[in-house]
């Protein structure tokens, strides 16, 4: 059916891809073309099937129906052997996963070479490989130090290694699954500049993102999945935020607007608090959170946010200073004590700290309150009560899963976040610590999180919002403090701040310089 003219320049074609997991259709008859030099953004709600589709393309899953066609050399399309990552690599498809797949204890160079040569040949082929990589780095602007160990690299650098790995294998098609979810705004800008350059060089690029601004700024074309089906495929020039949001969720999204809060008495206070060591340590931090307010913490990641979150989560002791809740000192903190004191904690790394993937959705929803009478009697679990409550939470928080008994690891990234939100906010906490709460969430879910955080504030809770997303911070926070190298600035009312001065302070200039 497809005429020759239409095939011109097509480097990748998905043709009627359908993938089912049991009763669930993760992809339904999806067809998609990618042209040479094109940047295609793939959008869709959490659980819409984006990652699944890319996994089929790369051979991790086998489609139940449909086929993947590639044109490695820019001439005719031929069918790609399904279910073989090796074949996908051979055909010039490179993939950067949502979670990186690098060996932490090897150098960047070893990681890039791994799997391309036989191990015995590694040492001999090193010099030419290094030359090729240096050339690639110069051309694409992706710079990493090849001899550094992966464990010493920042997230952004690790991602660059992943991209280089794909380019080194002569990828003609590059797929990136939510590449900016873990990047700072500056790193994201650099990434997109690089992608533009690569596309100009003739690479076809697909990236998945929930951030509409970057989609609009950096893609040529947008494809939208909803419920596993492709519902739109159009040039980016014809889109705006509203339209994209509507296409994704099927109805208009009202962006949450903060009404002025009415902060009350100091609720949670850090006094000259220090903790942790190394780059991410906290130094001499004073923080006062009042009830009924959202206090935003702005900063480039790696400046002490993680330690701050760990302290408030009860996972890291203070080495100096004190922490009080409602005027009472919290001594030897533990996660349990924090939960029992009415602190809800939304961890930054939800896969690592948020859920137990092998356990069911309902068990994960109950895990923080497993010793509460509603979940156990005399040490025996009350399964039917747990599942009943899980079903209610699944409905209330719109968690997309097959049932409350499915293992949590099978849920999409955004839906895993909703499990954490549901179980923490459900307890009517006094203080909410939200670390990057909308990372990886779709627009609908993000606005839902925002609504829930504002609702918690309005009923008198204090919310500490740690985020790298300045829009999110400005929209939600009553006051914003900036964290830099472990020091926390005074918190200023957010209406007196603007993005420019915040950006400068995040980079380490103090308030007077910025003014």
């Amino acid at each position, binding site marked *: 059916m497809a005429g020759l003219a239409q095939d011109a320049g097509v480097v990748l074609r998905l043709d009627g891809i359908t993938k089912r997991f049991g009763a669930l259709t993760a992809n339904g008859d999806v067809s998609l073309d990618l042209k040479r030099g094109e940047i295609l953004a793939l959008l869709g709600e959490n659980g819409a099937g984006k990652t699944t589709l890319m996994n089929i393309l790369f051979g991790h899953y086998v489609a139940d129906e449909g086929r993947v066609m590639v044109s490695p050399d820019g001439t005719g399309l031929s069918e790609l052997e399904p279910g073989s990552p090796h074949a996908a690599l051979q055909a010039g498809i490179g993939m950067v996963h949502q979670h990186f797949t690098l060996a932490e204890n090897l150098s960047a160079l070893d990681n890039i070479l791994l799997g391309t040569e036989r191990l015995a040949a590694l040492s001999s082929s090193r010099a030419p490989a290094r030359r090729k990589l240096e050339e690639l780095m110069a051309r694409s602007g992706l710079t990493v130090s090849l001899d550094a160990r992966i464990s010493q690299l920042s997230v952004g650098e690790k991602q660059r290694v992943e991209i280089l790995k794909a380019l080194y294998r002569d990828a003609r098609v590059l797929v990136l699954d939510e590449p900016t979810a873990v990047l700072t705004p500056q790193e994201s800008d650099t990434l997109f500049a690089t992608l533009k350059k690569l596309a100009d060089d003739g690479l076809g690029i697909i990236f998945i993102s929930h951030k509409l601004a970057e989609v609009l700024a950096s893609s040529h074309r947008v494809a939208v999945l909803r419920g596993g089906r492709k519902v739109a495929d159009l040039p980016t020039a014809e889109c705006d935020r509203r339209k994209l949001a509507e296409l994704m969720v099927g109805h208009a999204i009202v962006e949450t607007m903060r009404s002025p809060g009415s902060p009350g008495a100091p609720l949670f206070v850090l006094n000259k608090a220090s903790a942790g060591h190394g780059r991410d340590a906290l130094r001499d931090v004073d923080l006062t959170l009042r009830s009924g307010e959202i206090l935003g913490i702005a900063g480039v990641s790696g400046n002490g946010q993680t330690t701050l979150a760990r302290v408030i989560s009860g996972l890291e002791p203070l080495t100096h200073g004190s922490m009080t809740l409602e005027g009472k000192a919290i001594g030897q903190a533990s996660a349990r004590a924090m939960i029992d004191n009415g602190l809800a904690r939304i961890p930054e790394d939800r896969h690592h*700290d948020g859920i*137990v993937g*092998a356990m069911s959705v309902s068990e994960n929803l109950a895990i923080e309150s497993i010793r509460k009478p509603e979940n156990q009697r005399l040490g025996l679990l009350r399964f039917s009560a747990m599942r009943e409550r899980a079903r209610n939470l699944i409905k209330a928080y719109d968690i997309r899963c097959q049932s409350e008994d499915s293992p949590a690891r099978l849920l999409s990234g955004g839906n895993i976040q909703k499990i954490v939100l549901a179980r923490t906010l459900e307890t009517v906490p006094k203080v909410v610590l939200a670390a990057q709460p909308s990372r990886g969430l779709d627009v609908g879910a993000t606005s839902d999180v925002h609504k829930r955080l504002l609702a918690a504030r309005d009923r008198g809770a204090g919310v500490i919002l740690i985020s790298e997303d300045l829009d999110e911070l400005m929209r939600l926070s009553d006051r914003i403090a900036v964290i830099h190298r472990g020091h926390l600035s005074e918190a200023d009312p957010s209406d007196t701040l603007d993005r420019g001065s915040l950006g400068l302070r995040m980079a380490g200039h103090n308030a007077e310089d910025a003014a």
Partner: protein
Amino acid sequence: MIRFEPRGPSSVSRMLGVSIAAAVAALLLAAIPMAFAGLSVFEGYSLMVKGAFGSLFAFTEMLTRATPLILTGLAVAVAFRAKLWNIGAEGQLYAGALAAVAVGTGVISAPPYVLIPIVIVAGALAGGLVMLGPTLLKTRLGVDEVVTTLLLNFIILLFVQMMLEGPMKDPMGMGWPQSEPILDAAALPKLMDRMRIHWGLVIALVASLGVYFLLKRTVWGFEIRAVGENAAAARHAGIPVTATFIRVGLLSGALAGLAGVGEVAGLKGYLTADLSPGFGYSGIVVAMLAGLSPAGVVLAALFIASIFVGADSMSRATGVSNYLADLIVAMALLCVLVSGLFLRFKIRFVGSQTNQEAAE
């Protein structure tokens, strides 16, 4: 062409199927050395089946052999579920046996319904305490428990030998390094006349029911599973990770200790340094073969026990060495480890792309 595709959660029937397939594969592989030993495969296996199931005596012998394996298998399974790598069931078994002998050979005299529970509790406690050390070293100082539990096996065995040569040596033992005999009032009763099968089997079966119930239905079991699957998330969610490890360590050691109690107070009647032919290590195979499930442990222990008892009997009849049993058990373990692949991945065999299309 073989292709691997990750799959979703494993159903119980698939897990059972894979374990059985692994056992069968091990038996098939063992046919090769059997053939080299000049034994026809059919003859060898029929002798083994006869040796394990051929008579009431054979069958009860097999069950007697399975008794300690169920308990050490449970000890390993429950620890591994929490990712506490207890390789020391062998040492804990001896500690349990030593404690049973210490309280059961005349220090206390009481009627059986008092003395037997004392012996059982003493053995369980001793096993648990032995495992407490490595557990605390792990939780406090981060010392690798694989190393500590493994090395403790040798230390405990040497300690047992020392006791048997010294303070606990039976003066009536004609110089043999063995303990005084367990009092009749402290011995676990036999289950059948003129057979060696004893109440240890009942203890083992009750223990496996108990562990099943614990893991599945209780808060402690929930916490064990959570810690084992993702300790970071469990800690973040306020689950007492250290306490959970300590509980698991005590329980695991206690189960292995019970195996020692059964052997000494149910079967042998006195303690020697060769009480266990590696029941603690075989427990690891049993637990792995069982996929760490308590019900599976019972089945796997019966399988391994049949192999051992059957091979002994075959060896007596033919002169082929009973090392064959160790070989089969080792192969079963390998097959199970490989079969883990089948549980996590769907394996598709494809001739070529066109075949694939035709098939769909």
